[in-house]
């Protein structure tokens, strides 16, 4: 074992801390995915591209001279309307259709958005400097950028806010009712069309927050959306729909896995490791489920 991470165990602490902070961010995106999956039965491949788009909004505020941290307020507002528009244009036609149709349609949206962002924002890797400084721990051997800590705190705040909103508000109750039984909700006077549009908008707004946080903590590029989609999909299938602590935990687990994969396999295999993990999880889940099916026999 001549890997650096095993020679210097303090790097494990570093990787775990980085991974947990990163994972909280992933969990926020996954929460949006679980929301629209549960309510509308749609798997949105364009999820990651919504995130990146939200990030570019924060980046342009940074370019215009405003501190990019304000992006976490502006970006979700703009992204809400983007999501709402997407719903009205395309998604409402695929909601009650075959799941594959929605996957393919959102895949098309994803390609469209990638290319539009490529034209509008350019193909360079950009980052919005937050100038938050860094925190040193354990005799300066573990460094944590404050922007990462800030992003984790903001993610948690937004998630808690959303959970309360879902529990207490009228729209939140309507969304939960539609998720349980769309037909019954319709009979009882819920305008499901409106609920779907709002759900997609809320999801896009969550993506906007996450994107703004990614803009200040990591880098943005028009083509890196798909890994975020896959990560959130993975988190949702590990945790299951409607299991919020599970989403948070598996998000952190995924973050830690990624950081360790980065150290052990090398950065060039990081995305590959994420996608391979997806395949392994799905296949593992399939064997677990098939065993359950055999018991039922």
């Amino acid at each position, binding site marked *: 074992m001549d890997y650096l991470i095993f020679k210097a165990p303090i790097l494990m602490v570093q990787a775990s801390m980085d991974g947990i902070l990163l994972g909280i961010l992933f969990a926020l995106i996954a929460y949006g995915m679980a929301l629209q999956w549960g309510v509308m039965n749609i798997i949105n491949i364009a999820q990651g591209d919504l995130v990146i788009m939200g990030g570019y909004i924060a980046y342009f505020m940074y370019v215009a001279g405003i501190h990019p941290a304000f992006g976490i307020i502006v970006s979700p507002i703009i992204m809400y309307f983007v999501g709402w528009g997407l719903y009205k244009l395309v998604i409402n036609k695929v909601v009650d259709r075959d799941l594959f149709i929605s996957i393919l349609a959102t895949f098309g949206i994803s390609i469209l958005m990638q290319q539009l962002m490529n034209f509008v924002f350019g193909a360079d890797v950009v980052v919005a400097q937050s100038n938050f400084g860094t925190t040193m721990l354990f005799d300066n051997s573990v460094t944590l950028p404050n922007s990462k800590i800030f992003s984790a705190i903001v993610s948690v705040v937004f998630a808690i806010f959303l959970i309360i909103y879902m529990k207490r508000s009228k729209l939140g109750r309507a969304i939960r009712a539609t998720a349980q039984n769309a037909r019954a909700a319709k009979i009882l006077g819920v305008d499901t069309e409106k609920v779907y549009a709002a759900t997609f908008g809320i999801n896009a707004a969550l993506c906007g927050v996450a994107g703004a946080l990614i803009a200040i903590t990591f880098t943005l590029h028009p083509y890196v959306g*798909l890994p975020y989609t896959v990560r959130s999909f993975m988190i949702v299938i590990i945790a299951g729909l409607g299991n919020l602590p599970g989403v948070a935990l598996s998000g952190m687990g995924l973050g830690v896995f990624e950081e360790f994969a980065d150290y052990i396999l090398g950065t060039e295999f990081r995305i590959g490791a994420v996608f391979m993990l997806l395949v392994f999880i799905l296949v593992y889940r399939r064997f677990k489920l098939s065993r359950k099916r055999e018991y039922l026999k």
Partner: protein
Amino acid sequence: MKKNNLILYGVLLVLGLTAPFLFPAFKVQISFMLILIILAMTWDVQGGQMGYNSFGNILFFGIGMYLCASIQIGMFFPLAEWTESGGEKTFLHTPTQYFQGLAVGLVFAAIVPAIVAALIGYGILGLRGHYFAICTLGLGIAAGEIAGGIELIGAGQGMTTPPWPKGIGDTELRAEFFYYICFALLIATFSFLNWAYKKRFGLVLNAIRDNEDKAEAMGIHTMRYKIVGWVVSAFFVGLAGGLVGNIVGYIEPIEVAFDGREMGVFMVLMAILGGKGTLWGPVIGASAFHIFKEGFWTFFLGWQYVALGFLIVVIVVFFPEGFMGWLREKYPERFGEVIDEADRKAQVELK
């Protein structure tokens, strides 16, 4: 009906055989069209006939491409030095070496993806619906990322395939040579699938699409058929990949070999455009798509991918039945369906 079919096949065969001389400027383009038809037809084995919407057939395409090129080079020269030298070709194949390498390479490009499909099939084909779709999507992208990290095959830089040997004709001959190989492969694919769909195999695939649990309950080993279907696809897609590597002359992990963003989407799109679940649908869809793409792509001037995304959304949302589905709706008698006119009228009135 039978006679008409024979005439149709005859015309297409003659057209295919004479195409390089009828359109000498478009030999490579037409070869690509044939490859796209093969990809769409093999995708349709899963997507259309079996109801398993795969985004991952591009995996076999890439494996076939890399393997064919590596064997072509590795049989005669050290592979690592070849990829390291990049564009400057320090080694040259003699004609005999070239054709020997190509033959062996293509054989492996067909067999190894088929074996890979058989090995991973048991795990992955057990997934249903969207889990299968996303899993295969991940598989294709992971393969591209991993291939981009392996030094031996050129990592992210890519590698060149052996150039056409000197002394036996020019690039025109090369284009014709590969055109006829592609054409032969297309005929092989088409006749095999045409034969297989008429047998029990095709019926079982359709049964799996319509209701897998019921098919299993009736005593069909659905998993076996699913794996065999995937192996068939992988076999032909791998061959197509090996050929494309040689036609293009340059292999790059994400843009050429494991090109999920282009080829991987194209094959789904073409099959849907033509009408999935039919024998002729993918052929028509791929031809129409390729002709449209080559004819009008240049007008979009850098907006090609925007147009592609737009096209996917429009086709999927507004035209999911495809061309054959539309024909079937319009002329059901031609497809051997009997329509009760009185019943049809009654339904219209009910609406």
